[in-house]
């Protein structure tokens, strides 16, 4: 089944491989995640914890980032 929606249990690598345009969301927040050695292991929920964001808000931000580019 094709993955159609970004979710917090995806790893950073999975999400960026599926939607490269999400890179902009990480960069805007000055996160070190894109290209990080830990990206295959860390989930998007871990990112929220590491950068002290509310998971719900982080997910909204990721989804908004995809909508901006028309996905």
């Amino acid at each position, binding site marked *: 089944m094709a993955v159609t929606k970004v979710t917090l249990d995806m790893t950073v690598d999975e999400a960026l491989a599926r939607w490269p345009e999400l890179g902009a969301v990480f960069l805007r927040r000055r996160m070190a995640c894109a290209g990080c050695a*830990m990206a295959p*292991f860390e989930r998007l929920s871990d990112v929220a914890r590491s950068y002290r964001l509310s998971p719900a808000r982080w997910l909204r931000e990721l989804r908004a980032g995809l909508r901006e580019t028309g996905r």
Partner: protein
Amino acid sequence: MRKPTGETPRVEARDRARREPARAGPWADWATRPGLFRGLDPRDISAIIATARHRRVVSRGVFFHQGTPASALHVLVHGRAKLVQTTAEGHQVVVRIVGPGDMFGGVALLGDAAYPATAEAISASEALAWPGPQVARLLARHPALALNALRVLADRLGELQDRYRELATERVERRVAHALARLARQAGRRDERGVRIDMTLTRQELAELTGTTLYTVSRILSAWQARGLIDAGRARVVIRDPHGLIAIAEDLPAGAPAGSREG
């Protein structure tokens, strides 16, 4: 690694691979992974592998010694090995750690060269080996193989440049953090405690990999363990706070990492 395959070979697709029908080795996925064989026809890969010599080495055993004539290009099939250079004064430096699919001893291609480092297994390992002149013939016959070899060497050069810059400019703590991050990328497994580096790696080896002393590595690992960044066993490391480790390696601004606390 020698598990029997339960599948029936698809005869029409396989009967052209004359000698080795449907023997699914550890290299079954080499065509799709970065490395020497990426993008090659699986039948070509089987044919190339059929010409290699298989070498098995016990843990701490040696594939070849520094300074001896470089006779064969190796590709590790399974296990793990370190390439170690020893200086005239007896200092040891771990130049690189190789895992399954990685090539080493590539200098054998050049003809009259000597191995620049000793290749020692850090766990029981198996490698394929091709004599230098034979590799030259294979590269001429398979241009994709030659292009992949260039790619592998370019990647390695990039990694060495990174490590050179780290040695020249970074504090030891950042170098150790970078080394652990690289090892995690190479051999990391996620488990319930964090990211486990799936290889035996002594503190001495970590010191030789980062150009520092056993004492310094032990001090740094103990401090990180006390902060909950890692779990460091005798020869095992689990990264419990991946972001915290990257924050050290990349000198990320304080305050962002969850593990850090002011004061």
